């Protein structure tokens, strides 16, 4: 089976202009990352803030062009710096952002939010069909037709994230990039959104790139895990391999730092405290 997404040695530099007497400074945000991802799988990218995971997400979604390296989507080479981006490529990859409060336009009704991708990308579609599809998608993400004419401020954080997911799915993408989709949500709402993502993956055969720094969520949802540190992929493997036998020292640090809500862990801590 050919991979839905493949990247080879992707690099991204940012130039900071130095001024008259100072040299330009170059920041290497992503330093040569490669992987391939098959259809229906979930790759989780883990790392701390500033490690380049969101920059990589922007490259994967073809928002930003890489400085060097190759990006293949469904086996087709994409180079937005040279060729620009065709509407059908845009249809294939969609993104859901971290903050559902910031990623929806407060002046746009939910129905318009959902129909806009169709207006832009499928100009020949009649308005009645657009409406129908948007209503159908609302239902799929667990909202109702009564929500069609409401504004984003009338929804809770979890519902807004559902709207953002619905918008991303309007064009039937094959790849969905999720940039910390549940880190702004409460525990119970987080569980609902994670379940929704799993349901949608089963139904549409979606491929996910899931960016997160919450290892318990990653362990639950991912098939493969990639750990990034200062722009490099320091570890990449199946979920079980990475979690049971972390190789890189940074991965080990990350695991050690993650608070664990297990009874054995609490017992150990209380024992340490009593001894001290």
């Amino acid at each position, binding site marked *: 089976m050919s991979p839905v997404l493949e990247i080879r040695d992707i690099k991204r530099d940012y130039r900071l202009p130095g001024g008259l007497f100072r040299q330009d400074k170059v920041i290497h945000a992503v330093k040569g990352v490669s992987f391939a991802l098959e259809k229906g799988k979930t790759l989780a990218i883990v790392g701390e803030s500033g490690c380049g995971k969101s920059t990589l997400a922007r490259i994967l979604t073809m928002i930003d062009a890489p400085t060097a390296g190759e990006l293949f989507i469904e086996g087709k080479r994409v180079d937005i710096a040279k060729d620009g981006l065709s509407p059908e490529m845009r249809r294939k990859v969609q993104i859901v952002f971290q903050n559902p409060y910031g990623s929806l336009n407060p002046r746009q009704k939910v129905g318009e939010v959902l129909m806009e991708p169709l207006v832009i990308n499928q100009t020949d579609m009649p308005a009645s069909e657009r409406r129908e599809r948007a209503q159908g998608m609302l239902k799929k993400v667990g909202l109702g037709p009564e929500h069609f004419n409401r504004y984003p401020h009338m929804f809770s954080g979890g519902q807004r994230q559902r709207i953002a997911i619905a918008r991303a799915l309007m064009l039937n993408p094959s790849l969905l990039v999720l940039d910390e989709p549940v880190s702004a949500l409460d*525990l*119970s709402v987080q569980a609902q959104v994670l*379940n929704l993502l799993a349901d949608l993956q089963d139904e549409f055969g979606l491929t996910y790139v899931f960016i997160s720094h919450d290892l*318990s969520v990653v362990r*639950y949802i991912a098939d493969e895990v990639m750990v990034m540190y200062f722009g490099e992929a320091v570890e990449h493997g199946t979920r079980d391999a990475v979690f049971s036998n972390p190789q890189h020292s940074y991965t080990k640090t990350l695991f050690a730092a993650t*608070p*664990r*809500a*297990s009874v054995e862990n*609490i017992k150990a801590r209380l024992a340490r405290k009593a001894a001290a």
Partner: protein
Amino acid sequence: MSILLEIENLSVEFETASGPFRAVDGVSMKVHEGEVLAIVGESGSGKSVSMLAVMGLLPWTAKVRADKMLFQGRDLLGLDASARRKLVGKDMAMIFQEPMASLNPCFTVGFQIEEVLRVHLGLDRKARRARAIELLDAVGIPDPASRLSAYPHQMSGGQCQRVMIAVAIACNPKLLIADEPTTALDVTIQKQILDLLMRLQAEHGMGLIMITHNMGVVAETADRVVVQYKGKKMEEADVLSLFENPQHPYTKALLAALPENATGDRLPTVSAAAFEEVLQ
């Protein structure tokens, strides 16, 4: 151990266009000296509002009522505003969620730490500076003497949170309230900040109230846990029995929704209907 903070039947109401809204409804709790109490709940459960009421930081539109609100045996609700201001920031202090937003961007870090020392302890300039350096050192900021003249925007989120902690512990408070102190931070930084808080708590024997929605943080820090939902206290237990044997259906649902406790390929969700009748 003597009781530091005692709250009985606290309720907070806000006046809204559609009538009064009760954010906190009949919550009681006690904090002993040297104890770590975690308050857990989702957003909107009233966990922050109840602690803001203790600190006296709610806007005047909020109606705070309680049968008892004692801090070291003194009635907080009976105090006048100036007596309360003398207490807040000195004997009880609070750390907020957004370190970047809760420091003043217009003043240096040193000024903001020294301000507390000037207002509450009346130290002279030299002593203030020495103490500020000592505090920055205690919270683990490298090269503290030169960092005093840094502005908040020149520091990272983790460092800003350390400065916030330095401001809060400047007068050696008896009670420290940490309102989601690590929510905005990376896991590695979160670990450092939690370790720092626990070390300071043990060294000074402070009472510490941790407000959080992260069950992992609760497991790593708390002695006792209060679970809140929609402004009401659902359950109170020591940390081990809460995780081992949760009594209330809401606590059970909350623990089951943790991804690390997942057994099947879907997470059980917290449905309000399941325990709504218990609330009645």
